[in-house]
């Protein structure tokens, strides 16, 4: 059964170096768990792409169309002529459109975040509580014992102060 070999490091620099070595040795499923965002992580583990910006854009676009349709549509459904002015009045309806664009953009961003970061987590995953305090953890998925030993060797030589083996729930 596949296990995760995790190495705990004191400093971000050594954790990043270890992750880089694992990646170089062919361990693709490598990740870093850290108490702060690590800015060099993408350089080591490869550039990440996120769909969040698409969610924001299309959410905003939907909100824009919805906002204007809401204002204009309800004005047509319930006619309220005022001083000979048009029923569909652009300037005030643009304000409603603007607000709905932002509201839907925000809600879509949240959905995009939850989907792309896989939240809320419904099962136990690899986690090291010290990583929320002051440890930088490199986690690597190993398919068999040989891989496991190789990963441990790399992590130890990179300066890991502790090695753990953790399993994820299926």
């Amino acid at each position: 059964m596949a296990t995760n070999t995790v190495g705990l490091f004191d400093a971000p620099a050594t954790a990043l170096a270890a992750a880089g070595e694992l990646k170089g040795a062919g361990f693709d499923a490598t990740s870093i768990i850290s108490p702060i965002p690590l800015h060099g992580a993408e350089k080591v583990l490869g550039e990440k792409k996120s769909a969040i910006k698409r969610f924001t854009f299309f959410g905003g676009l939907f909100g824009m169309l919805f906002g204007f349709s809401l204002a204009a549509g309800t004005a047509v459904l319930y006619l309220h002529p005022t001083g000979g002015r048009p029923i569909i009045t652009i300037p005030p309806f643009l304000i409603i459109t603007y607000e709905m664009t932002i509201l839907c953009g925000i809600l879509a961003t949240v959905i995009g975040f939850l989907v792309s970061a896989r939240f809320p987590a419904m099962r136990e995953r690899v986690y090291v509580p010290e990583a929320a305090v002051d440890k930088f953890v490199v986690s690597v998925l190993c398919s068999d014992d040989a891989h496991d030993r190789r990963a441990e060797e790399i992590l130890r030589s990179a300066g890991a102060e502790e090695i753990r083996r953790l399993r994820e729930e299926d």
Partner: protein
Amino acid sequence: MQAERDISYADVNRDVVRSLVETGSKYYITLAISVSVMLACFFAPWFYQLQYGIGAAGMNHPTVWGTYLASFIFWIGLSHSGTLLSCVLHITNSSWRKAMYRSAEAMTLFSLMVAVTMVMVHLGRPWFIHWAVPYPNQMELWPNFRSPLMFDVMAITTYLTGSTIFIYMGTIPDFAAVRDRTTGWRHHMYVLLSLGWRGTDTEWHRLGWAYTFLAVLIIPLAVSVHSIVSWDFALSIVPALHQTIFAPYFVVGAIYSGTAGIVTVMFVLRKYMNFEHYITKLHFDNLGKLLLVLSLIWTYINVLEIFTGWYSGTSTEYEAIRYKLFGYYAPLYWEMILFCAVAPLLMISKRFRTSFVPMLILSIAINIGMYTERFLIVATSLSRQYLPDAWGIYVPSLVEISIMVGSLAMFVTLFLIFVKIFPSISIYEIKETLPEPEPKTQSESGAPEWQPTL
């Protein structure tokens, strides 16, 4: 950065978790007082007003808006602090924001809640407030989206939703950090709130993007909210209200009072939540500079308001200006000028900006002045419209004064609850400002400092 002593990552976790789980008698006494004041001064008079009708308030012809709406503008204004400090300083990479933005965002959220409640109080029949929501109904009625009041409904709903999401999303990593160090019901609560956050590189990446997008969306939203609030007044044809300067005037005033509010809250957090090492003179210095600039812009717009009124050459505008400067409410006007335009000049001195108690006093004075400004906008304009036979003085009734005080107690109560649920300073962002840990040699590393539970 801001830390005055050497702080380790573990210290940050420990100090913040301590602020959540260790609660002294002072906290409970303060909470009891604020809840009591809220019940006695806010809910009891409101109940009385609901029983006996809106006549319990001093609002009457010609001044049909009073302190309820002045409070509404004030609280909406205060809410702009979070947006400025959090979003603007986030996208401009200002690291000094990190110790204070969480509380600033909380101020935004609770100010908005209180502001919405003030609208409910102002309504004669608040049980019909759902009529402002566009939903299909058996009467086949729809709200009038050409009305500035509907702009308000849409803008404030959006702002409240956006602010709630913004503060929550930025706190997810901290909820996870607290989750690991708490037990019992608190642990269960943080398990739910943290959504299963682990701190992987992918999660940080996604959070970074989402947070930045939210910040970028919320800045124009905040500007629009207070512009729209100003249009509640400026779109009327009342002298002294019907002015194009009102939108920027309100936005600047909002950021000004919000920043002053942040100074007050920072002082209290620093002193009573033991965050002396995180909230330092640097923060007060920077906030002081910001306040000084805002006070100058605010003063300029006030001068401009008088100038454009005079330059219009209209008798009604002349009268509105004369009445504001020398009429019945003139003492309040000059108090506002003293507190918001003259006293803030003290912040030219760095010594003043880095002195905690004087900054606290000044920040409170600024917000008293800003409340007065909002009161004067409503009271001086409506009580002095076109025809002298329609003039009249407005004085708030005891019910209104009591609710005004009670709204402050409501804000304090919400904030006191907040500081025991949300980490009031951001754990991970504070860590980002600390020097990166150096790799230890094998002999130094020893047993980890981390302890599983408190």
